[in-house]
């Protein structure tokens, strides 16, 4: 893990040190060169002064002990020298360097008023002065670098404070808090991140809310069948004859079947959350319809209802067999609930406008127009519904059909002789 603060601090510190060193070096050189040129000017001034003196005493009284001045007459005979032991040779005009008693000197020579004048200064002293001046310019810069780094660290820390507060805000959140993160006072660069996090939180909250609602609804939906089971079991012991006991036991079995059916439906609703791992393949609709009819044949026979597959039902859809069978099974199960004994349920598939329409048509009482869409909501039950459904079958169908990229509708047959469930799924042209 890398700390943004540490990285900012490190990179800017390196920049400061490099820039500081470059500045210091430039300053060092500049000041050093300027000092040397100042010292040269000084030599020139002394030379001019020496031109006006007779014996150089004025020059000696200046106290520039390290400076050697020699003056020659026009006859090239030495008139005087401030350092007698140092015999300056008669030099060339201008600046030059000479060795006097094996010590390097910088010498300025000139001819003024018929006199040859030479002014010399030891190079060592010049270097010392130049270095001292340059260091005086260089050192403050070097001291400023760490000061700047510390100031920068504090500034970065202060600027990143909102980010740290944001982190603290996130850390303090409970898993079920609904409000988003506070974006005010945050730098503009961070706000998009906070916005995205808030959007994600909102989506997760909504998903968690749906899940909690589902669990609550499911628990509630289980209450009725469980209450029935409890009572059916309780009344068993009150039976006074074998026949009565058998009748009560049959009722208990029906109660168990109902509870099991409900839990199946709950599972299929819970499972029918979108999952991308299901592979959709080309499936023959007629075969699937045949399979569903086989599955529900015993129940239909018990209720004296005929399940009929329309002969011309060949089409291929993109689906997976688990989903397709669940969809068709739920629709047939519904149709069986509402078709009176002796009735008929017809299943058919047909192609229409590049889609496949699968229809399940019962001979039940149909539905009031206002209920035709509401019945797809989970746990919704039509008031006074005698079918004893859980309110989950059609919700399951709607979920599954949507996952397959299709659409499901209910409509009453025009002559009010039953309900028609119509699924539209994408067609695969074989």
């Amino acid at each position, binding site marked *: 893990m890398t700390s943004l603060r540490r990285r900012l601090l490190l990179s800017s510190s390196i920049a400061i040190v490099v820039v500081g060193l470059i500045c210091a070096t430039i300053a060092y050189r500049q000041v050093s060169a300027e000092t040397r040129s100042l010292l040269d000017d000084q030599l020139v001034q002394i030379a001019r002064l020496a031109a006006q003196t007779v014996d150089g005493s004025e020059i000696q009284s200046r106290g520039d002990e390290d400076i050697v001045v020699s003056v020659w007459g026009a006859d090239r005979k030495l008139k005087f020298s401030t350092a007698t032991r140092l015999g300056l040779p008669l030099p060339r005009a201008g600046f030059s360097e000479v060795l006097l008693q094996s010590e390097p000197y910088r010498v300025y020579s000139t001819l003024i008023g018929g006199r040859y004048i030479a002014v010399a200064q030891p190079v060592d002293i010049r270097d010392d002065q130049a270095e001292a001046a340059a260091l005086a310019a260089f050192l403050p810069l070097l001291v400023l670098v760490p000061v700047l780094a510390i100031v920068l660290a504090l500034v970065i820390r202060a600027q990143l404070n909102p980010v740290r507060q944001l982190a603290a805000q996130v850390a303090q959140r409970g898993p079920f808090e609904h409000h988003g993160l506070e974006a005010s006072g945050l730098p503009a660069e961070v706000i998009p991140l906070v916005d995205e996090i808030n959007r994600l939180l909102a989506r997760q909250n909504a998903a968690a809310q749906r899940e909690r609602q589902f669990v609550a609804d499911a628990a509630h939906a289980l209450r009725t069948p469980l*209450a029935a*089971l*409890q*009572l*059916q079991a309780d*009344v068993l012991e*009150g039976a006074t004859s074998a026949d009565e006991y058998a009748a009560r036991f049959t009722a208990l079995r029906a109660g168990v079947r109902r509870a099991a059916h409900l839990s199946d439906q709950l599972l299929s609703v819970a499972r029918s959350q979108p999952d991308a791992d299901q592979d959709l393949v080309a499936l023959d609709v007629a075969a699937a319809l045949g399979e569903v009819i086989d599955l529900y044949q015993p129940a239909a026979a018990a209720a004296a209802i005929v399940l009929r597959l329309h002969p011309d039902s060949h089409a291929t859809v993109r689906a997976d067999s688990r989903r397709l069978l669940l969809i068709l099974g739920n629709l047939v199960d519904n149709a069986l609930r509402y078709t009176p004994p002796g009735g008929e349920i017809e299943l058919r598939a047909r192609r229409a406008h590049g889609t496949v329409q699968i229809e399940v048509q019962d001979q039940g009482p149909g539905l009031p127009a206002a209920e035709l869409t509401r019945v797809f909501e989970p746990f919704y039950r039509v*008031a006074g519904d005698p079918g004893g459904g859980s309110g989950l079958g059609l919700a399951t169908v709607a979920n599954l059909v949507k996952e397959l990229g299709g659409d499901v509708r209910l409509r009453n047959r025009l002559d009010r002789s039953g309900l028609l469930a119509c699924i539209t799924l994408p067609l695969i042209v074989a």
Partner: protein
Amino acid sequence: MRILIVEDDAMIGASLVRGLTDEGYAVDWVRDGGQAEAALIDRHHEFHLVLLDLGLPQRDGTEVLRHLRAAGDNILVLIITARDSLADRIEGLDLGADDFLVKPFELTELKARIRALARRHAGRIEPQLKTAVLTLDPAARCVVRADRRIQLTAREFALLEALMQRPGVLLSRTQLESRIYSWSEAVESNAVEFLLHGLRQKIGADQIENVRGVGWRIVTGS
């Protein structure tokens, strides 16, 4: 005691009818709020207690209860519902329900609550019904005379209970019929006399007094 069950779930309703009939109660069952109101208004005086489901088709159970209490009916109401939130329970009780039972529940608890309600309704503190000679225990469903336990059928027990709940009060044949038979039962015209005959043989003929043409009452003194 005659009970009206208002319950839309076929399995729960059927089991309640069975369980309470076993107990000797006269039980009638309707499946929606409209039928419940009709039954309670038309046959107002026949029922002693209503088992009221709240989530009913047509007319919600709370509506039924509100109408009932607004009409000044003081019949015992025991709500049986899958709605278990505190708000639901408080609303139900505040609307005038006498008790509240959340599904799923055990039959034994329902029966105990019905007995408790009946007892309170009659202004009794003791769970047992007593005369100078007989003791009837509604919970244990037994009748004791002089430390001897008397075996009664469920109907006989219900009949004796009806008489002992109103000590000294004359009850007509119709009143007794309505307390021990539900609508669905075809009652022979002399069924009550027949039951009373059997009952007298078991508990002692002197314990039930007959006022010809008016009815019967339990003898309270010795």
